[in-house]
């Protein structure tokens, strides 16, 4: 080993250690969050309600109430397990991808943000805050799904997830704005008190529900979730159980009192949920890749929760809350199992592995607990989730009962296929030893699932408190084992029997499921999405070509529609007294002179075929106007006009220095199109601008209203210059937002000019 290699190796170790510290810090953060959430929950919850910008209706309204506690505990608790698992998994993943281990730093940062945004969403009770955290989870998930950014599939999957959940999140904002328009508040408790059943409430509730459906990967917007499996396994484990996908049903649980105001939305939830259960479980049966099976299982499992929210009432709300807990515990453990199996064998398909129970007994036992919990077998917390689910279905009638039994049997069948396929049967792949940290979190989650099956009390209380928030009235949950022939037990027995039947008819059922999957691939929403994206891309290309290739078109595209709008306004609004012709006095001579110079310069610009001379003429025009402002008593505007005009001239000259020599062809093409079109477009736009400016100048100076009040208030704000005071004080927030936009835009320009590198 040469000295340089030695040095490099040492540096890599040092950087690896820094990443280790970061990783343990993330675990510590999750642990501290869990401890805090637990402490606050046990002491009865807590809340903050702070109207920090009352003029804009913005407030920080966060509460660790029943629902908030449940999801915050899940996000931090599952977070501890998944983060600990990732400490062992990420080095393997990066080695496998051939990347330096230090890149895990990005993973840890985004995971921490992911967890934080989920906790924030759990506590938010204001629609704007909910929207904010909702989108923050989408952004974090984008970077996590695209963690292997060299791989095209990962980037595509991340973009799809961001696209589907981000666009639908806009619907959530739309619903929030509708409600604000009607009731003047974004605060949910106030909205619950104000919103009456009606069209507005129905539309707003439906919009919010659609956003939640997309987030929770409900049909027909489910297709992004299976593709998101491109992410590293810890991301999948977290995304499916406690973050992102859980965020959708969390929002449903949070705004549920609004949803109940509309029969249509409630029935819609039943339909969407049942369709998702069906599609998810059939496809889970058809898939061969381990993570794909689990992804489709998630679609179906959140379908249950959506159905339960659609049933509503104390039973539905309580069952939904317990369902989320049981599912999160089981699903994160199963995902981590799939990852551990892949680390051990290098295989990720069900048909390539088998018989691992003998090699990895602890992993087999731990994931058996998780699988049993998902399949609702007794002695696991999952049994109670189905007991409550069946109980709620009974309230809704026999049709729902039959659907519930069918759904439960499918769940049992596909999860048994998953577990048996990995751990039973003949051994198909060699299994290497895996680090203990890859198995310990799974064992811990399995143990919690088991503990919940023995002592359900604390979990039931947690779920009941969450359901109380959802339901708007106290909810009591008493899940327990009953050794009698009540309907729930009979339904469970029926589901197990049917599930076993499905499992034994595996070849037949599998073939049918695969046929369904193929049909879905060809005709399903994912195909529609692909076609839509391609069409959108093509449309965008065409618009880009039209606009960018020809400067004339892009200018006309702005000026002509503007002119048309003004003409329409001119026709449809009364013009009596709007246009006045004033008198001209000797004092106005300087302005007239300056405007004449500006007009001459403008004519020169249109007629000069050269390059630099029109720029100079443009600059003359600008300075003449600036001088006109100064003369007419607007020195602030004049100052800004002068500096901006100077910058513009410098930029023009600088850019012209870079331009290649004029192409004769281009000039000839311009001539062939003829000056007629230019004259028409320019004349039309100029006339429109003239009409507007004349109308504006015809008005008397404003003596009352906002402007006058602000001019009067300026001395009180210790300012003599009304423009500056307005910018910095009266409209300070606007200025702040503007300069932020400016900074971001310039950052983008600078990055583009440097071909993607920031500095």
């Amino acid at each position, binding site marked *: 080993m040469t000295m340089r290699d030695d040095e490099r190796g040492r540096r890599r170790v040092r950087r690896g250690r820094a990443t280790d510290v970061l990783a343990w810090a993330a675990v510590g953060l999750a642990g501290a969050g869990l401890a805090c959430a637990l402490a606050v929950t046990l002491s009865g919850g807590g809340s903050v309600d702070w109207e920090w910008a009352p003029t804009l209706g913005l407030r920080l309204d966060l509460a660790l109430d029943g629902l908030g506690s449940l999801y915050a505990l899940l996000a931090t608790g599952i977070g501890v397990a998944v983060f600990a698992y990732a400490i062992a998994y990420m080095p393997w993943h990066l080695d496998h991808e051939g990347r330096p281990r230090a890149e895990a730093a990005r993973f840890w940062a985004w995971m921490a943000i992911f967890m934080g945004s989920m906790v924030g969403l759990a506590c938010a009770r204001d629609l704007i805050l909910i929207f904010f955290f909702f989108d923050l989870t989408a952004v974090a998930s984008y970077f996590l799904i695209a963690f292997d950014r060299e791989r095209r599939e990962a980037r595509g999957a991340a973009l799809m997830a961001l696209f589907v959940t981000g666009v639908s999140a806009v619907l959530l904002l739309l619903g929030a704005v509708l409600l604000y328009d009607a009731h003047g508040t974004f605060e949910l408790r106030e909205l619950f008190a104000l919103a009456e059943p009606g069209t507005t409430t129905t539309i707003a509730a439906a919009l919010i529900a659609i956003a939640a459906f997309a987030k929770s990967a409900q049909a027909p917007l489910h297709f992004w979730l299976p593709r998101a499996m491109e992410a590293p396994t810890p991301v999948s484990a977290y995304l499916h159980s406690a973050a992102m996908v859980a965020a959708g049903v969390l929002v449903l649980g949070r705004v549920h009192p609004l949803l109940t105001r509309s029969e249509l939305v409630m029935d819609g939830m039943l339909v969407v949920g049942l369709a998702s259960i069906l599609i998810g479980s059939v496809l889970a049966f058809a898939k061969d890749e381990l993570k794909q099976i689990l992804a489709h299982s998630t679609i179906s499992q959140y379908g249950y929760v959506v159905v339960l929210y659609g049933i509503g009432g104390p039973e539905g709300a309580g069952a939904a809350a317990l369902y989320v807990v049981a599912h999160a515990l089981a699903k994160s453990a199963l995902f981590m199992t799939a990852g551990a199996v892949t680390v051990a064998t290098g295989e990720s398909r069900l048909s390539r592995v088998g018989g691992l129970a003998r090699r990895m007994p602890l992993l087999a036992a731990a994931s058996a607990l998780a699988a049993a919990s998902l399949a609702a077998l007794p002695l696991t917390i999952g049994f109670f989730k189905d007991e409550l689910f069946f109980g709620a279905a009974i309230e809704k009638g026999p049709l729902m009962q039959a659907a519930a039994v069918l759904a439960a049997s499918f769940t049992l069948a596909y999860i048994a296929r998953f577990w048996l396929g990995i751990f039973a049967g003949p051994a198909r792949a060699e299994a290497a030893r895996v680090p203990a940290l890859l198995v310990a979190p799974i064992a811990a989650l399995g143990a919690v699932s088991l503990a919940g099956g023995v002592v359900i009390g604390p979990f039931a209380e947690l779920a009941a408190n969450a359901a109380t928030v959802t339901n708007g009235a106290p909810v009591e949950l008493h899940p327990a084992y009953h050794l009698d022939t009540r309907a729930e037990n009979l339904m469970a027995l029926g589901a197990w029997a049917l599930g076993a039947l499905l499992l034994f008819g595996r070849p037949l059922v599998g073939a049918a499921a695969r046929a369904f999957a193929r049909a879905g691939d060809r005709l399903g929403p994912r195909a529609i999405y692909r076609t839509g994206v391609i069409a959108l891309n093509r449309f965008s290309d065409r618009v880009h070509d039209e606009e960018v290739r020809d400067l004339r078109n892009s200018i006309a595209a702005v000026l002509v529609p503007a002119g048309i709008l003004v003409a329409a306004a001119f026709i449809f609004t009364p013009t009596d007294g709007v246009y006045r012709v004033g008198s001209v006095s000797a004092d106005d001579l300087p302005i007239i002179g300056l405007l004449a110079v500006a007009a001459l310069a403008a004519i020169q610009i249109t007629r000069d075929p050269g390059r630099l001379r029109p720029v100079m003429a443009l600059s003359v025009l600008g300075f003449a106007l600036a001088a006109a402002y100064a003369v007419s008593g607007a020195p602030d505007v004049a100052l800004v006009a002068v500096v901006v005009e*100077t*910058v513009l001239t410098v930029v023009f000259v600088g850019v012209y220095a870079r331009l290649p020599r004029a192409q004769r062809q281009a000039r000839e093409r311009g001539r062939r199109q003829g000056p007629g079109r230019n004259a028409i477009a320019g004349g039309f736009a100029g006339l429109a601008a003239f009409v507007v400016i004349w109308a504006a100048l015809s008005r008397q100076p404003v003596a009352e209203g906002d402007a006058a009040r602000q001019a009067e208030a300026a001395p009180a704000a210790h300012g003599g210059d009304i423009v500056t005071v307005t910018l910095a*004080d009266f409209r*300070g927030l606007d200025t702040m937002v503007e300069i932020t936009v400016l900074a971001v835009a310039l950052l983008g*320009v*600078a990055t583009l*000019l440097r071909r993607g590198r920031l500095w």
Partner: protein
Amino acid sequence: MSVVIEVIAPRLIGPALILALAIIVKGYQDVGDGFSAGVILALAIALRYIALGVDRAEAGLPILRHTGPVAVAGILVALASGFFGVLLGDPPFTHQPGPGEDVVHFGTLEFITAVSFDLGLFALVTSALVAVMHALARLVEGGES
């Protein structure tokens, strides 16, 4: 490039900085604000880039290479002066001292938070424009070499 430009242009930064600061200091009583001041200083810096080229311009004035931190500092100053009122329970952009209260003067400079907001704006505008100039100038030089 004529000698006159090469000698004078780089030395215009000093006067431009004085002018910019004067605009900010007087800004709250008189014409001008942080934005104009920032653009004026940026123009002087642009002249320096044009006269000397990127490398020489930045070798003599190394701060031009650190526009990123200056821009961030500007945003932070602006944010802090806009939002510290929130901590006192006021809405954002409630400047201190409030209406009718006494203001500490230093010449014509008034110590009010609106002025520090303007200073942040000034830093941001200047450094953002310089950052773009730097990138553009590099592009021009790269294209020619």
